[in-house]
């Protein structure tokens, strides 16, 4: 980055309050009003998706030709599709899948990314160069085409190995997560580079701490901030990726109503039943938007350089 010393036009001042780092981070997070409200909205959404089907006991596959293409009403709050299936139930179900995919893919991306980034960050010379070359290589791969390709090629195998739903879930999660580890690795590596030269790490080294102890106890906790922010981006990207795959017809099997799939199904009926595409689209939008704001709030809260 071009230079990093800020102009010192404002004098230094010490904060009179002394809070634990987590309490301080929470205070800063709350100042970001959009992020704060997003936390509540997302929380409500997650609760709704998790507990909704327990309360709203309409089946996702209950076909009712009498009620096909019905607009939103008391009986069907989000309307019905061309087979008369209730859209609210389907959207709630799809929510569970989207959130599960998002979290799982994010965990894979973070785990792989942190491990590779940490190894690259702590080693010097050829190992670091080699790992970075591989990272750059993966970054140059066109993600969506390869996603499509991988899913298409390995769908059958995984279905046979793990059963239809679990198999596809595993495939999608591994493939999506497998494309998101690179930015995390780079982040972690950059953090390691800047932290390992810092005095407190040198102090630990001088006291005889082994490399792994230095990494785990001293460097990693300080590198966590940007990783948490990256994690929120990963969840959001994974949800969008899964929806996109479903929308293109290459995601979960057709009878599983993920949000992307519902949109795909409703595409041909846009003029007759616009609510069919609107509601799942809005669901994706709100989920992703709230996660984005939360990520932004976290960035403000955890970045030690910003004085708020």
């Amino acid at each position: 980055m071009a230079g990093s010393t800020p102009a010192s036009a404002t004098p230094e001042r010490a904060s009179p309050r002394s809070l634990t780092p987590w309490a301080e981070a929470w205070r800063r997070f709350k100042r970001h009003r959009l992020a704060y409200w997003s936390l509540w909205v997302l929380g409500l959404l997650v609760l709704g998706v998790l507990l909704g089907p327990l309360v709203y006991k309409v089946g996702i596959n209950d076909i009712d030709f009498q009620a096909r293409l019905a607009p939103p009403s008391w009986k069907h709050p989000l309307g019905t599709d061309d087979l008369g299936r209730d859209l609210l139930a389907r959207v709630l179900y799809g929510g569970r899948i989207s959130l599960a995919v998002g979290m799982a893919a994010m965990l894979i991306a973070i785990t792989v990314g942190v491990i590779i980034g940490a190894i690259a960050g702590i080693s010097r010379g050829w190992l670091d160069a080699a790992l970075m070359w591989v990272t750059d290589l993966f970054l140059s791969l066109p993600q969506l085409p390869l996603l499509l390709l991988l899913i298409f090629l390995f769908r059958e195998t995984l279905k046979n190995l793990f059963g239809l739903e679990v198999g596809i879930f595993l495939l999608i999660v591994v493939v999506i997560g497998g494309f998101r580890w690179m930015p995390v690795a780079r982040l972690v590596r950059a953090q390691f580079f800047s932290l390992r030269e810092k005095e407190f790490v040198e102090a630990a080294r001088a006291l005889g701490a082994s490399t792994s102890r230095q990494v785990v106890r001293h460097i990693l906790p300080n590198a966590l901030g940007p990783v948490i922010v990256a994690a929120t981006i990963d969840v959001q990207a994974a949800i969008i990726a899964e929806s996109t795959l479903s929308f293109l017809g290459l995601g979960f099997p057709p009878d599983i109503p993920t949000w992307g799939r519902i949109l795909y199904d409703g595409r041909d009926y846009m003029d007759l039943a616009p609510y069919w595409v609107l509601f799942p689209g809005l669901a994706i939008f709100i989920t992703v938007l709230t996660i984005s704001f939360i990520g932004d709030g976290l960035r403000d809260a955890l970045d030690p350089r910003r004085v708020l």
Partner: protein
Amino acid sequence: MGNYLLRRLLIAVPSLLGISLILFTVLALAPGDPFEDLATNPNVPAEVRLALRASLGLDDPVWQRYLHWLGSMLQGNWGFSFVSRIDVDTLIWQRLPVTIAIIGASQILALMVALPVGILAAVKPYSWFDRIASTMAFVGFSLPTFFTGVLFILVFSIELGWLPFVFRADISETGWQWWVEQIKQSIMPVAVLGLFQAASWMRYVRSSVLDVIRLDYVSTARSKGLAERAVVMKHVVRNALIPVVTLIALQLPQLFGGAIVTEQIFRIPGIGSLLIDAILRNDTPVVMAVTFVLSALVIIFNLLADVVYGWLDPRISYT
């Protein structure tokens, strides 16, 4: 500068090889036989099928197949598509220009929106303009492209009837009318892709300008008596653009993904829809060739981005 370019080029070549290796491995590991369909085709006798397999070296050891395939790819011999009964390279060259045109136009649109909005937002941070622009940016990149595309069709094609939502590659009008029709049918896909990009770029530009504007050399520029506008336009923007160029280049692979989606929604006959069709129809040679072309394009554009980066930042080229 020459040194720097040479180094980037030397890295690009093994990267291309690496990608081709990955692609080939994926396809080699995949179960299924590309000629399975032919087996059930009564018009193709068994001996012909076996001869085809032998001629394409399908029974050779893997590494031999890889080298053979790589060789033909680099020579431009991309094989023959049994499904479409056409040479793969003809097929690709037919479809590539449309995709490049739409992607190119969307990038230009994105730049025209993101640069001024991002700079203005950063110059007056937390002003009402900044808050609105930043919130719109968040909204923009939280809307998946397929949803925006669908919404646009709902509003502009179905409700208002202003724009067509099926893309025609063969517009019969000529001259001025041809351009009008072309713009009318391209405006939605270009806008969908472009605005999505603009949303994330605007955030990058804003954060980069915010970082640069507090630096010491900006104070030095002001202390010379330059008007604030000149300080920002001349001193800040040039420096702020440097990391933005890198970020834009890194996002290029995603762009092709976006193109795939828009081509499906608006039924544009480009490379993206070609890929999907080929996948769904088991047309392996086309799939391999298209993924290879897309990867090569990404590497070429990354190289271009490196060139621009080297031109913008003298610290890179003059070391």
